[in-house]
Each structure stands twice: as structure tokens, then as C-alpha cells.
């Protein structure tokens, strides 16, 4: 085996190419995420009491809000990585932006659908053109456009540059979504932040467990996506 192959296998940790280095950094992440998911299910379905007005439907909140939080975090990572790419032309930053956008879009989809489920049960409609809902739909479309842009530009340098620009512009919608409940009249419940309604302690605890758990899920999935990206590069490099 030549030195190049040895180097690839080193990156591979002897068995698993490229991604193993990332895995070695946080060996506890996988088990911690799994345990956290189990604890989250207990808190969301058993620890938190049933809401007196909304009944079981209120439990959608424990997946809806943490997913929304992670979608913001994911797009903040895209924003920061895009700036890093444009200033330093860092391939790592471009890969991180791509991974965060893909997984952020996944979380955004869950937010939209769980919101629609809650809306149908409580408001009687799946959708209304409320400022919070509309600005969030725009966010979903912007990141869908980001993924589409990456898929349709063959040249890697142009792909990275154009998607970085879109990643920065698209992030401008995040503060609009967050502040929409303060700027405009809205039907959307306002629980946290200035003028928010707040919630009882046990429900709050379940919500914070959800925030912690979904943050771990996000980090785990991003790490997995980066491993796959590094492996794909290693295989293609070997073919060329």
C-alpha cells in the first residue's frame, strides 16, 4: 500500500475513511443524542401535564418550537459559513454551509407541518396568511432555493460562491420571522420574549429538554453529513 493510500486510511481511522477523524472528536455524541431523545419522549408525553384548553394537541409545541430554534441555528451557521467562505475561500466552510442548509431545511419542514397540524386542531384551518407563518414559509422557500442552486451549478467554485451569497441574503429573513409577532398583528402564539405569555414549569422543562435534544440531533446530523461529504471526496479523488 503506497503512502497516499496510507494517508487516506489514516484519515479513515484504519477502517472508515475520512469521517473517522470527526467521529473521534466527539465519541459520546451518538449515545448522548440517543439518551437525550429517550428523555425527551418521556418529558414531552409523560412529565409535561395535559393542557387544560388545548388537550393533547399542545404537545406538538415540544417538537415545533425546538425544531424552529434549530432551523434558526442552522441558517445562522449557513450565514457565518458563507461569510467565511467568501472571505477565506475555505472549502470546509462551504461544506459546513451545505450540511447546515440541508438539515436546516429538514427542521423547517417539520416546523411548517407541525404548525399546520396545531393550526388545524386549534384554529380550524391548516394555513392562514399570518405574518409569522408567511415569513417562515418564505424562509423555507429561500433555503429550498439554496439547495436547488447548489444542485444546478456544476462548477464547484461558482456553486460555492453563488450559494454563499444566497446564504447571506436568505438569513435576513430570520430576524423578520422572529420579530414578526412584535411588528405586526398576528394569530401566532407568542410565548417567549418581550410581551410573551410564558408557560408553567413542567411544560417549560419539557420544552428545554426538547431544545437540548434537537440541538444534539442537529449537531449529530451535520457531523454525519460532513463525514459523507469527506468520504465522497476521498472516493472521487481515488478515482481521478
Amino acid at each position: 500500500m503506497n503512502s497516499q493510500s496510507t494517508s487516506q486510511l489514516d484519515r479513515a481511522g484504519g477502517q472508515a475513511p475520512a469521517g473517522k477523524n470527526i467521529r473521534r472528536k466527539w465519541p459520546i455524541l451518538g449515545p448522548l443524542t440517543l439518551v437525550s431523545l429517550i428523555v425527551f419522549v418521556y418529558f414531552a408525553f409523560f412529565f409535561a401535564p395535559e393542557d387544560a384548553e388545548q388537550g393533547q394537541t399542545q404537545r406538538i409545541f415540544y417538537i415545533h418550537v425546538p425544531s424552529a430554534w434549530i432551523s434558526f441555528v442552522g441558517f445562522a451557521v449557513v450565514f457565518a459559513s458563507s461569510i467565511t467562505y467568501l472571505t477565506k475561500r475555505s472549502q470546509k466552510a462551504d461544506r459546513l454551509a451545505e450540511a447546515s442548509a440541508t438539515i436546516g431545511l429538514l427542521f423547517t419542514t417539520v416546523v411548517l407541518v407541525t404548525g399546520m397540524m396545531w393550526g388545524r386542531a386549534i384554529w380550524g384551518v391548516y394555513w392562514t396568511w399570518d405574518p409569522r407563518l408567511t415569513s417562515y414559509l418564505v424562509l423555507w422557500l429561500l433555503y429550498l432555493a439554496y439547495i436547488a442552486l447548489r444542485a444546478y451549478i456544476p462548477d464547484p467554485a461558482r456553486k460555492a460562491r453563488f450559494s454563499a451569497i444566497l446564504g447571506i441574503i436568505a438569513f435576513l429573513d430570520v430576524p423578520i420571522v422572529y420579530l414578526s409577532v412584535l411588528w405586526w398583528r398576528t394569530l401566532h402564539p407568542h410565548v417567549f420574549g418581550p410581551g410573551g405569555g410564558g408557560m408553567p414549569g413542567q411544560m417549560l422543562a419539557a420544552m428545554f429538554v426538547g431544545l437540548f435534544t434537537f440541538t444534539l440531533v442537529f449537531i449529530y446530523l451535520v457531523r454525519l453529513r460532513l463525514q459523507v461529504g469527506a468520504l465522497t471526496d476521498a472516493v472521487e479523488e481515488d478515482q481521478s
Partner: protein
Amino acid sequence: MTGAPFLVFGYGLATVLYGGYFLRMALLRRTLQHQLRAKLEVG
């Protein structure tokens, strides 16, 4: 009103999306690892 069907659909969709993405990436990682190892062994 219990809203149980909406609750089940919401959590079910999240499980399918997050779990499905995890499975897809984990399987892809495994396939790529095998491909690279095979190529390195041949080389």
C-alpha cells in the same frame, strides 16, 4: 377535543424525516467506506 391524530401525524412526520435522513446518510457512509476500502486494497 384531544387532537391525538394531529399529534401523531406531527411527531410521526418528524420521526420519518429526521430518522429517514439519518438512515440515508448512515447507509451512504457505510457504502462509501466499503468503496474506498476496496479501491485502496486493489490499488
